[in-house]
């Protein structure tokens, strides 16, 4: 039988050495794009039935249940992340559960690359490419936000204080990677209100 061969978006990138925060690709995450109306009770109930967690309704927040995490993207759009192996089943389950409800669930596990930044100063590294203020309490762990990053669109997820995941469309992965490698290069450290807590 012809076996499927898997290759992440950054499979051919140059390793990130000489950086002052660590950079690595997260390649095994599944993603589902879910559309539906936040005002539609049936929709919310069906989504919860499958995901076992309420869809977050507050802008820029996320909700977690076990290995499933749901990002708020818009009043009618969420991004669900899960182990890659579960994505297809989950999206089919969602579609089935949502039959008859105005909605759209698509498995988009391959659409984005995820780059994890870890270490002291990650927020500032990201702020070399975005005008969002990540240093002032508006972005506690769990926050998500879509943004313009360098020259591209990206989604930001603050995982922990010094851990940030950046989601970019797959075709831009190398660009984002190279940008971050340069921004995080040792010797170019820059902090914003470094003494503040």
């Amino acid at each position, binding site marked *: *039988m*012809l*076996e*499927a*061969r*898997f*290759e992440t*978006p950054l*499979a*051919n990138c140059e390793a990130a050495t*000489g950086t002052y925060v660590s950079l690595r690709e997260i*390649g095994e995450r599944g993603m589902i*794009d879910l*559309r539906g109306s936040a005002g539609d009770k049936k929709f919310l109930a069906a989504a919860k039935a499958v995901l076992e967690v309420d869809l977050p309704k507050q802008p820029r927040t996320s909700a977690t249940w076990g290995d499933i995490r749901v990002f708020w993207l818009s009043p*009618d759009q969420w991004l669900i992340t899960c182990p890659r192996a579960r994505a*297809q089943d989950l999206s089919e389950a969602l579609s089935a559960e949502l039959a008859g409800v*105005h*909605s*759209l669930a*698509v*498995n*988009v*596990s*391959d*659409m*984005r690359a995820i780059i994890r930044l870890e270490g002291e100063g990650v927020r*500032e590294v990201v*702020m*070399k490419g*975005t*005008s*969002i*203020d990540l*240093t*002032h309490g508006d972005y506690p762990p769990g926050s998500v936000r879509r943004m313009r990053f*360098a*020259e*591209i669109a990206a989604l930001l997820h603050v995982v922990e204080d010094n851990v940030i995941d950046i989601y970019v*469309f*797959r*075709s*831009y*992965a*190398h*660009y984002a990677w*190279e*940008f971050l490698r*340069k*921004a995080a*290069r*040792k*010797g*170019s450290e*820059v902090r*914003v*209100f*470094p*003494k*503040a*807590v």
Partner: protein
Amino acid sequence: MTGKPYRLATGGSRIDRTKPITFSFDGRMLPAFAGDTVASAVQASGQRVMGRSYKYHRPRGVIGLGSEEMNALIGVGIGARHEPNLRATQIELYNGMTTVSQNRWPSLNFDIGAINNKLSRFFPGGFYYKTFMWPRSFWKHVYEPVIRHAAGLGKAAEERDPDSYEHMHIHADVVVVGGGIAGLTAAEAAAAGGVRVLLIDENPVLGGIADLTAGKVGEGSVADHARAVAERLAALPNVQILSRTTAVGHFHHNYMMAFERVADHDPSLLANGAPRHRLWKIRAGHIILASGALERPIAFANNDRPGIALASAVRGMVERYGVAPGTNGVVFTNNDDAYLTALALRKAGVNVRVVDSRARPQGDLVKLALAEGIEVSPSSVISKVDGTLNVKSVKIAAYRKGQGRVITERQVDCDFIAMSGGWNPALHLWCHNGGKIRFDDGLASFRPNTHTDAITAVGAANGTMSVAETLTEAVAAGEAAAKSVNAKAKALKAKMPAVEEPSRGALEPLWFAPATGGYNEGNKHFIDYQNDVTAADLELAQREGYESVEHTKRYTTFGMATDQGKTSNLNGLGVLSEATGKSIPEIGVTTFRPPYTPYSFGAIAGSLTKDLFLPVRRTPIFQWHKDKGAVFEPVGQWRRAYTYPTAGEDKHAAIAREILAVRNKVGLLDASTLGKIEIKGPDAAEFLDRMYTNMFSTLKVGKCRYGLMMNELGFLTDDGVTVRLADDHFLMHTTSGGADRIAAWLEEWLQTEWTHYKVFVTPVTEQWAQFAVAGPRAREVLQKLEPDFDMSNEAFPHMSFKVGRLGGYPVRVFRISFSGEMSYEVATPANLGRGLWDAILAAGEEFGIEAYGTEALHVLRAEKGYIVVGDETDGTTTPIDVGLEGLVSKKKADFIGKRSLEQSFLKGPNRKQLVGLLTDDPNEVLPDGAYAVREVKDKPPMDMIGQVTSTYMSPTLGRSIAMALIENGRARMGETISFPLEGGKVVKARIVSPVFYDQDGGRINA
């Protein structure tokens, strides 16, 4: 004085005498100390001339103390790292630095261009508008080249800049510009309120001119106080300080740009990874402008001679760098501040006298000077300066306000002059975004008035010249700023230290110090030093009718040099005021524009150059294309493989090989860039009927249909195949370049016009790797990949699709064709794309499969007469023009663009229509974009009837083919038309159907 002519034995708060360094200036090695600037070290060496002026090439020395310097412009570094036009007063020396003077030939002290000075009488302001017109061709060939060669200051680097740059964003509640006592105090007061405070100063050391300011704060000097506040600030967690950073521009919504020179003072940082410059993009809640004031020169005859500097700059040379400006000087002033300079010189052992234009100077500092035995000449001006490369002597004359020329003069020997015409608040940033200013008679200068943005000015920037008032004002401003961003901010409770400072006598404006001989007769009273604009030039502009100050500026170039008139603009207004009898506010100021001081293009570009200049999008197969040696082509942001030449093969041969492989065997194309959009909802079909020109509600589930999209003007913008996945669910394909635009377009209509439609649109372009497997053997190749669906022509006909698996690969397969061959587009999740690509190639090997690129694709489709939006159309082309009338629904009442097709011009006669062309000579390939004419003439103009849109040598047909848009083309089938080419050649071609190959479509359906 030490062995070196001008370095004093002691003093110099900025230099470290234990760290001697050397640097080169115009090839000469000179000694210096760590902490010196180029200005201080060159002056210490005894060299005064540091540059030549723009137009007259007059020798010039240092005038200023910091970023206001307009004369001493220096080039730093060599080769790719050379940077021209830097201000000597701001360049921090490091060991081994290479510096050169500019705009002189052959040398600084002997410059041929100085002949212009001798002829200056013939070059008044704006003279070039009056001459150089005859003979006509001389402008381009003689005058302009000479002018260009003479103009310009330094030289650009010779190679690409090896250093890196970056941007950084920062948000601060309060941004304080300027780290003098005003800024430091305001920052501390704001910080006490618990808000985030960003303090910016362009110098390496905080304190502004505190060290050059008289008085005591508490127990110590003003400088001691500044240092103490700076230290406290440095320890606060909510304060960030950026030094060596210039706030260059203030923009809408309190956006501020600040330019940090990270490594210019220490190139070893570059080697360790630092960017050379960093541009800070600052969003401020409130801005406190504490940018200080700039001292202004006085316009007196030959006031530009090397050895004449601003009084504060002379003071700074002595106190900061331990450099004496000379041995015997004259301080020329109209205010009390310059007396500090006289006192500092006296203290340093330099002989000095004061010339004061005021009748009764009487402040504390004047008294102190008199008490020190300094000779003060009131009611006097300098009426003349002797010396060219150096000041040798001056003439001092009696003066009464308003006097046009002086009568009695006496000569006094001296070797330098320190001048002070008063101080101008640094209003630039206040004005960048429209702040209003008002004239203050006491200062004889403008000061901030009102602003619509959240910004306040304090200290000298606000025209507040006393230390005590500055501190009070700064505390209040800091507290108010904190309160304005955070209502709960606390006030700074610290007690105000007691301030003692000398009383000051009033300044009396002196815009023009008269000389012997009539006003403007031969003497040069420089207003704008760098651009060589004199008082006489300004007056001439007025007389010639260039009355508006903006006209005067442009006619004389006053204020347009690299210092943007920082020190000179107001003097110019003063001169204009005296010449016209209008008050200075009536004359008005020219517009302040960013930047405050020039900053590097490198910093503006930041890190987004080289590999990061505009992103390249890669498909999942990118690496394979690269390894295969593909020639790439940019398509939107994508890089697509154009063709894959093998060793020894040229591009044309490669393309022909790829085409024939598709026609005769099978080819594989990476089509992953095609836009893909999922559209779902009960109204999806109706919605698509609005978006496309043709009907989609009738499409059957499991089927594909080619659709056309217009904009509201009736012009084609995109096309592609859409498939119906379910009753309420579609998958749309768009062109590669159109994917994002079309997704946004659909969203826009749904959100803004048909808001009641229940439709969701989710772009999924990047989820899928998609390949065309095309050619007579395509089915056999896929068959080998273990499809779990029936591949037979009956079960899987043209324009249908399947969802299933090829072995372990989940796929969506669309039987659609852009090549005219039997063709399957196979989509698999992107992360599996490369695997499937390799598998298809392996399976196809026995059938002779070849990867083909975009050029082969384009030829293949042209052979079939398929259009490419963007090639056959150009944004002014309707579907009917390109012969796709059949796809423009007559049944639908409305769709985007329909109404515009009714406009008379779009419906009118003689529109250009798409046709095929066969040249008379089958080996002749018409050039791209060639125009056909109604009638060939000996020479242009000729009446054009249309143009080639696509043209190729068709390997399939063994002859050239072309498509063209020709006036009434469809009615002209069979007609032969002419294309006159460059060099007189005329190519003739016959109009035919654009479908050149397989007209009945048998191959597609095979």
